[in-house]
């Protein structure tokens, strides 16, 4: 045996078995840590935080003008739930698996003795970890700064958490499935939710925004168009959509070609 072969020999206790498999929880932690590190970019975080702060500044101005609860709810809905949370979720959710696939590092997680779903769920949790503080703190602070009370703060917290989970899951799925996820995601946010889904109650059922608006309306009693679900429905349906999106993403990741 050559010297090099001797060097290759590891201690007996380190020798692997032929039936190794990564437990799901360990795989999930691994995926979470790797994706979180990949997603964490100072420039990206600063830019998205500034975007989120727009809602805070607008709410502060509204609060200074002694606006009523309805104006405050409209502002939170239009800025926080229609722009800030979906866009930030798109950036992080779409990149969670999408960046790994695009930069071809996905192979380091895919070609391993582990299930696929922990990769997708770990990536989703990493996206939520970054999206939640960047969006929820400024948007909830905006709700506080309107100074209107009347359930707007708890409504914003509940609807915000639901929105972050649902959008991150849907955009994680898009990142698994599609290239140019930002383009598709913006098309969903701007064209589907921002235009087509406003056309009627039937179409609006297929927009996450309808459910988050419903929670806000249900908690404040303010009357907004296309927001007529109860709080339980507004919570359960988006969360169910999130579960389905992650399941679909896991299935897709198992069956797609990897570069």
């Amino acid at each position, binding site marked *: 045996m050559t010297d090099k072969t001797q060097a*290759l020999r*590891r201690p007996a206790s*380190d020798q692997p078995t032929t039936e190794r498999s*990564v437990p799901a929880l360990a795989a999930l932690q691994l995926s979470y840590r790797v994706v979180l590190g*990949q997603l964490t970019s100072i420039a990206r975080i600063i830019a998205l935080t500034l975007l989120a702060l727009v809602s805070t500044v607008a709410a502060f101005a509204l609060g200074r003008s002694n606006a009523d609860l309805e104006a405050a709810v409209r502002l939170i809905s239009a800025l926080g739930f229609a722009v800030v949370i979906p866009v930030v979720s798109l950036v992080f959710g779409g990149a969670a698996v999408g960046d790994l696939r695009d930069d071809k590092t996905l192979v*380091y997680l895919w070609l391993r*003795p582990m299930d696929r779903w922990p990769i997708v769920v770990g990536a989703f949790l990493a996206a939520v970890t970054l999206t939640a503080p960047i969006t929820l703190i400024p948007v909830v602070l905006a709700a506080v700064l309107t100074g209107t009370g009347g359930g707007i703060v708890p409504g914003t917290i509940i609807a915000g958490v639901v929105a972050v989970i649902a959008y991150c899951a849907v955009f994680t799925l898009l990142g698994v499935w599609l290239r140019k996820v930002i383009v598709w995601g913006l098309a969903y946010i701007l064209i589907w939710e921002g235009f087509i889904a406003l056309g009627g109650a039937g179409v609006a059922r297929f927009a996450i925004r309808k459910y988050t608006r419903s929670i806000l309306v249900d908690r404040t009693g303010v009357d907004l168009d296309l927001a007529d679900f109860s709080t339980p429905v507004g919570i359960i349906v988006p969360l169910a959509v999130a579960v389905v999106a992650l399941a679909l993403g896991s299935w897709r990741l198992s069956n797609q070609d990897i570069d």
Partner: protein
Amino acid sequence: MTTLPPPAAPLAPPNPDALATNAMITVNEVSKFFGSIVAVSDVNFAIDGGVTALLGPNGAGKSTLFRMICGLTAPSKGSIRVLGSDPRTDRTVRGRISLVPQQDALFDHLSAIEMVQVSANSHAMPDAKGIAHWALEQVDLADVGAKTVGQFSKGMRQRVKVACALVNDPEVLILDEPLTGLDPVQRRHMIALFHALGDAGRCVLVSSHVLDEVARLGSRVLVIAQGRLVASGDYRDLRSLMDDRPLRIRIGASAPRRLGTALVERGLVTALSLDAHNGPGHLIVDTLDADGLGRKLAPIATELNIRLTEVSPLDDDLESVFRYLVEGR
């Protein structure tokens, strides 16, 4: 394994009936289509422990074949078995194989030791940190393990990828152009490492499009061109086949017709033509004795009072070798 056939006729692929069913890697009648593009066509081979080189020009289908062997993409036709299992569907076999991908992709935010540790953890290895350190030692990167891989040169990144592939002590190691970007010292070191793994009974399959690399990688070669396996066998047979083939050379001279006539009369060339593309002062010759032509060309030119302006081989590239292997010309 089918030995290299004679060069005069197009080479037949290996006989699928002869494939060893218990080999570590068995590729049986495998084709891969991307729409109307045939990336890999009816490839058959079976290989066992030791180092095997997969030789082919860029775009020949090497990476696609490797991706199928690793289960990253399914064959459109045929079947692949790695250690007796389908790598696309069998989760456990993925713990027994490793791939060094061609693309320069790493988790750039991680240090080298963290990157290799992630690889060890993703194989459920105990003492991932210890194994990561050991793997970095194997590729001479232990002393820079704390630096982030994003700061590394291409050669260092290449070695990190190899370290990542070593952590699970793989029975099958697939390396897609692993020597790209390495300096000569590191190339020698890596080749020695691959041979050590092969000597230890691992199945090491290495791709390259550089002929000289293959000479050092191993005696067994698979030659792939245009998606087809055109030859397989011992490298020395391939080398002698190449040495025997005619070499095409362009010669620039002040009197090309007179020089060409003299070369034919003295039996140094087997064919010649005037090279109209490069102006009137050039001719193209085919020779079976490149060394002899090289030695005698200048004295002949001096004797005839002809000034030589250029002597350059035209087909000393790998594509010409494949053309010769596939088409016999």
